[in-house]
């Protein structure tokens, strides 16, 4: 934690300079949120009594949008639909887009999450932003940083979440930031919008888990519908391969550093 603070202090003057000289870039940056270190219970097997520790990291406040992905493609032609090598994607890559650089915003919307991108493309995007895909544990830890006023409220939320996993309306996705669902740190829409790629979506242990009728029950380690919803999410994600593109999977990026302007905008992220 200390070394991170040092790095931030060193970077501060640079940030100020960047803020002054690159206002356009700065304003188009997706806000990054600091997710503080902590621990959580995964639905994957873990040592009893030892929650999974997670170091602090930064993550995009919202999922990557169509407009942001267009910007990336303009600078990285090799990831355009007509250029992307087949080893990095299935046929459905950005299938609904009108052309290489035109999603057809009247149908897909500037601020809706980009979907039908393979894990490889998502990875490349985040790398280009100076980040990476969040790890499975980072994403889940952040997603579970939610406060419920009562067990009843948690139960209702989780039931709705499970039902949502059975019926994501991929033809009518909402805009990012619109679900009203956010964690205690201000990361938005981890639920209720799309499912998201993570760096290690198919952890090594996935091969050891027998995916069968009992898996959901065995994953129900938290003894609540909250972990039931989580198990559906874990299993669905584990069933993908890195070339798959679907209308319900988008992504956001994670970082070791704050955004060049995020401190200026939020003031309190540290």
């Amino acid at each position, binding site marked *: 934690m200390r070394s991170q603070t040092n790095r931030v202090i060193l970077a501060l003057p640079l940030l100020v300079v960047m803020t002054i000289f690159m206002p356009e870039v700065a304003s188009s940056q997706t806000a990054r949120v600091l997710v503080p270190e902590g621990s959580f219970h995964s639905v994957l097997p873990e040592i009893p009594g030892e929650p999974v520790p997670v170091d602090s990291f930064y993550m995009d406040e919202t999922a990557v949008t169509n407009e942001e992905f267009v910007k990336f493609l303009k600078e990285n032609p090799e990831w355009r639909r007509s250029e992307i090598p087949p*080893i990095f994607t*299935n*046929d*459905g890559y950005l299938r609904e887009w009108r052309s290489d650089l035109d999603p057809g915003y009247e149908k897909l919307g500037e601020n809706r999450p980009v979907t039908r991108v393979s*894990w*490889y493309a998502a*990875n*490349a995007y*985040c*790398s280009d932003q*100076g*980040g*990476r895909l969040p790890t499975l544990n980072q994403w889940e830890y952040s997603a579970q940083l939610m406060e419920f006023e009562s067990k009843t409220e948690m139960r209702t939320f989780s*039931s709705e979440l*499970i*039902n949502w*996993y*059975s*019926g*994501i309306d*991929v*033809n009518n996705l909402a805009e990012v930031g619109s679900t009203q669902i956010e964690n205690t740190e201000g990361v938005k829409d981890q639920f209720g919008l799309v499912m998201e790629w993570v*760096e290690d979506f*198919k952890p090594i242990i996935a091969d050891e888990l*027998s*995916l*069968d*009728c009992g*898996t*959901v029950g065995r994953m129900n380690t938290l003894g609540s*519908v909250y972990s*039931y919803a989580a*198990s*559906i999410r874990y*299993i*669905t994600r584990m*069933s*993908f*391969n*890195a*070339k*798959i*593109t*679907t*209308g*319900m*999977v988008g992504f956001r990026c994670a*970082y*070791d550093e704050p955004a060049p302007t995020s401190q200026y905008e939020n003031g309190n992220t540290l």
Partner: protein
Amino acid sequence: MKSAISKITLLVGMIFFGMSSLLTAQTQEYTLDGMTFGMPEAEVYTEDYDGPPVVGEYVTQLPNLAPLDYEGNKHHEVRIDIIVQEIEVAEGVRYQAWTFGGTVPGPVLHVKEGDKITFVMKNRSDEEVTITDPAKGGSPFMNQVANNPYQKNSAAIMPMPHSMDFHAGTVAKDDKWRTIGPGETIKFDWVANYAGTYIYHCGTPSVLMHTAMGQHGVVVVSPKDGYDTGYEVDREYVIVQSEYYLTPGAGDLYTYDFEAASSNNPSHVVFNGHQTILHDQPLKANAGERVRFHVSNNGPSGTSSFHVIGGIFDRVWLEGHPSNEMRGMQTVLLGASGSATMDMIVPEEGKYILIDHEFVDAEKGATGTLKAGPRKK
């Protein structure tokens, strides 16, 4: 440093996924008790296929069963793709179903004991597939649905990973029944070693959710020497009982109700996927005829106490196996994924009600009509 990490990740990812596709299973065909085991490893791949989602000569829409017009055994080539359809399950109740082939339950596959099946299935849950237009090169199922779309099907999208578990098959589930993502296709062989009526369903967890969302159907495996009765039946029908767990959604559609599913409280219990279909389109027979019902309780969670009001089952073969013969049964108890083949003499002209004698299920829809005309012979 960060970009280096990403590149390493990319590389590791590529190697990892590349390696997993190179692994091969050690399988060799053998026979035991006259049955065939040991099928080659399943293939998972991507293909440019946008043809009919259901292909195969002996694949039909419920309650129909395709006649087996061949001697000896046959090697079938069957395709049943996974597609998403908005369907009606009761008047005014529509939801986005996850389906095999476009209907709930999925198509009926009819084979003979000892037949080999090469099965192909593409996960097309991320594309809109219309099944109500007549299709070329499809199965009888496609034309039957086009002529009689009683679930008022319309194409929809809901991409999810899915799999196929044929209870009629005897294979290693971590190979043949493996889960494939949207856009992927799986192909594998299996042999129908045992006669009977068998459910098929999606085996991807939550299996409760996937099955309740509509991913189930039946395979009828007719015994190679038939049932030992000394008579031919006049008609054969396939009836599948299943539950829906639906709740009104935000718009016009109903959605999956997790609370109801996990507390065994279905919103609808139905025959052949629709609350009133077997009244709207009664099964037909004539007085004095012998009718054979292949009944499967596909659940996912309930039991069925299958009875016909006004009839007694003359002979019943539990699970449809010719050795399991029972006589004179009023009600046949079918557990979740259980089945029976039942012969009934239709006594006289009139209406006979097929019913789950667990009346809470009957009142949720598990009833149907057999309409008998006058005696013809």
